[in-house]
């Protein structure tokens, strides 16, 4: 049993440790950095990124920051990295405490909400530069630009040429994607063969943003949408009209017929690479591991045309500045500096994502015209539908996720979508 004396010793030792650690925020690192910046007469600009644990992207962003700092006699950017999975919570907590950094990266669909909430300040004086960026990499709200990104990602049907050949399935092209009938016929052929656990994997085991990002393009391809985009006030008719119900029935039937798992595993790419599935609906980020596994046999097919044209989601991580920044001019200067093509190319290359500008794409091996990854850039240019740029988007996203999951698990499509529309319409009232 612990004696009181021992306990006292532990307590005193612990308290001493605490006292050593005390009186310096950020474990001393921040204080040191502040004093270094102050000693050199530079104004420090704090910057947050979601890249902790993502070595490649963090290194790329750090190199941009280092270049900026080296070019400066006035400002010094200090980068802090947070893990992606909990980044939004960290930012909203900091906003609640009025401790937002000057510069931060934001997942594109959150920009409108954060701008409406007063977290973000508009970026001005960059229209010429940002005019050369892919539209999906420039985040706008109420006619103002709030953020821009170095890259985008695209959705694709990942499959193998050998599978298409074996089952006599036509190889689709960007100009002639699969029709709904072709796709369903392919599902049936593969299912009937019994060669795979499931013909397709739509990553239904993922949660959160994947559902609107991955599945609203399918809904849009049927002719529906998450919300009416004329005024973003209501989802009536878009999310519960005939086209949306057709999508819901199809989605439900995919699960019911055993064409896909109602809840797939945590890592659908691994299942695809392990031969458990034949078609994987996923993002362009799967290109590196799947190409490594299957080499030239891999095929990144365009999205299926379910009647209203093929669609993919758009928008990834973007950079903006906060309203709480004490030196907005410094933050704006960094954002202008960092938008150069060479930095767009650097970050896109190191993360294997679609470069935001044509000039940057030409600098990134694989994304140049005709390169092996150029197809993703073409999909992005041709098929992207941005997630609705409304402050209510986070609610729209979670409502859609719940409705889609319910439908997949057998809920009545019409009643479920009607309820989702009622919920979204009610929530959107606060933004009118």
């Amino acid at each position, binding site marked *: 049993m612990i004696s009181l004396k021992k306990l006292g010793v532990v307590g005193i030792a612990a308290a001493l440790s605490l006292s050593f650690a005390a009186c310096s925020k*950020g474990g001393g690192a921040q204080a040191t950095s502040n004093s270094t910046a102050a000693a050199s007469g530079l104004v420090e600009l704090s910057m947050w990124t979601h890249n902790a644990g993502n070595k490649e992207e963090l290194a790329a962003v750090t190199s941009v920051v280092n270049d900026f700092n080296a070019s400066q006699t006035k400002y010094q950017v200090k980068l802090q990295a947070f893990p992606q999975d909990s980044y939004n919570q960290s930012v909203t907590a900091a906003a609640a405490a009025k401790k937002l950094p000057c510069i931060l990266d934001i997942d594109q669909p959150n920009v409108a909400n954060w701008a409406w909430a007063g977290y973000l300040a508009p970026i001005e004086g960059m229209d010429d530069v940002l005019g050369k960026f892919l539209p999906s990499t420039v985040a706008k709200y109420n006619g103002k630009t709030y953020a821009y990104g170095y890259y985008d990602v695209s959705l694709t049907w990942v499959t193998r040429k050998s599978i298409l050949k074996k089952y006599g399935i036509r190889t689709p092209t960007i100009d002639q994607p699969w029709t709904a009938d072709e796709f369903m016929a392919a599902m049936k052929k593969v299912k009937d063969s019994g060669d795979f656990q499931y013909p397709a994997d739509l990553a239904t085991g993922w949660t959160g943003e994947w559902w609107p990002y991955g599945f609203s393009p399918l809904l849009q391809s049927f002719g529906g949408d998450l919300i009416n985009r004329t005024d973003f006030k209501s989802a009536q008719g878009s999310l519960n009209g005939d086209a949306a119900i057709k999508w819901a029935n199809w989605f439900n039937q995919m699960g019911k017929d055993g064409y896909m798992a109602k809840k797939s595993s945590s890592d659908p790419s691994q299942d695809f690479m392990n031969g458990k599935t034949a078609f994987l609906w996923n993002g362009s980020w799967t290109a590196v591991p799947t190409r490594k596994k299957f080499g030239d046999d891999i095929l990144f097919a365009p999205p299926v045309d379910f009647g209203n044209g093929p669609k993919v989601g758009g928008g990834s991580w973007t950079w903006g500045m906060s309203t709480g920044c004490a030196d907005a001019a410094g933050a704006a200067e960094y954002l202008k500096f960092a938008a150069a093509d060479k930095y767009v190319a650097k970050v896109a290359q190191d993360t294997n994502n679609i470069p935001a500008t044509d000039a940057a794409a030409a600098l990134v091996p694989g994304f140049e015209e005709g390169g092996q990854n150029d197809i993703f850039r073409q999909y992005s240019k041709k098929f992207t539908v941005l997630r609705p740029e409304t402050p209510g988007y986070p609610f729209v996203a979670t409502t859609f996720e719940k409705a889609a999951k319910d439908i997949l698990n057998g809920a009545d499509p019409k009643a479920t979508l009607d309820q989702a529309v009622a919920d979204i319409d009610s929530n959107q009232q606060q933004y009118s």
Partner: protein
Amino acid sequence: MSDTLSHVADSHADATVAVAGTKAKPWLGPLVMLLRVVLCLVFGLPLVFLIVSSFKPDNEIFAALGTINAFLPVGSLSLDNYSGVIDRVPFATFMMNSVLISVVTVALGLLVNSMAAFALSRMEFRGQKLILGVILATLIVPFETMALPLLWWVNQLPYFDGSIGWLDTYEVQIIPFVANAFSIYLFYQYFDSIPKELDEAAKVDGAGWFRIYRSIVMPLSGPAIATVAILTFLPAWNSYLWPLMVTQSEAIRPVMVGMDYFKQMTGSTGTAWGQIMAYASMITVPVLALFIAFQRAFINSIASSGVKG
């Protein structure tokens, strides 16, 4: 005083004899054993899966899912996931932070909560029961509902260096969790079972309240101390939401936040499942070791205080 102590010891011994004297029916033996085996499998297999998977590459983890191989050390076993963890996360920093935060929280918690419970249990003053009632009432308020107001509050506090706000410090991860209603209740309940005659005997010998607390009540409360220590340590070690909200620098993040470093949807590597298993193994081992070290006292205390999990 020694008479009273031997009386307490005798009654504990009587209770032990009474429990030992209770004979189970013979046919119950195999059934209980079977139940134990099933429970062992239910609770043990996830741990086996965790540790075994930490040595496998991602593709083999997923290939083995749904088969017995998921629990067996077969395939391409290596320490790659562990080296990957060290490469991706400042593990030593996170571990040191968690140890510091947990140990200090436990040490201060034992002191503060036992003193509060001592006052409520042994001393007599007006409003004693009301104070105890109010403290216990706070048990029904989940932390999540208090997180934002607490964040606002700690952000208004003056800090040691003269600045305002405690965000991004060790203190903000410790101080709010020192005083704990459940710990006070555990101590209170245990202290109440210690005969008050001991206090009176000590007072006759000239001892004050602090001497009684330090030299009589606390030395007799080993099981309660062990229970409170482990019940304070576990949430401090597992703390996730609060550090996420209040830490901004990598230098002061605890281990649980580190778990998020392995989940990336985009990027060339995607989610590193093998590394997640390796990291989870690395942060679980200290807690398991602690539980094994304290389990006898912990179980004794639960048995004697009647507290259920």
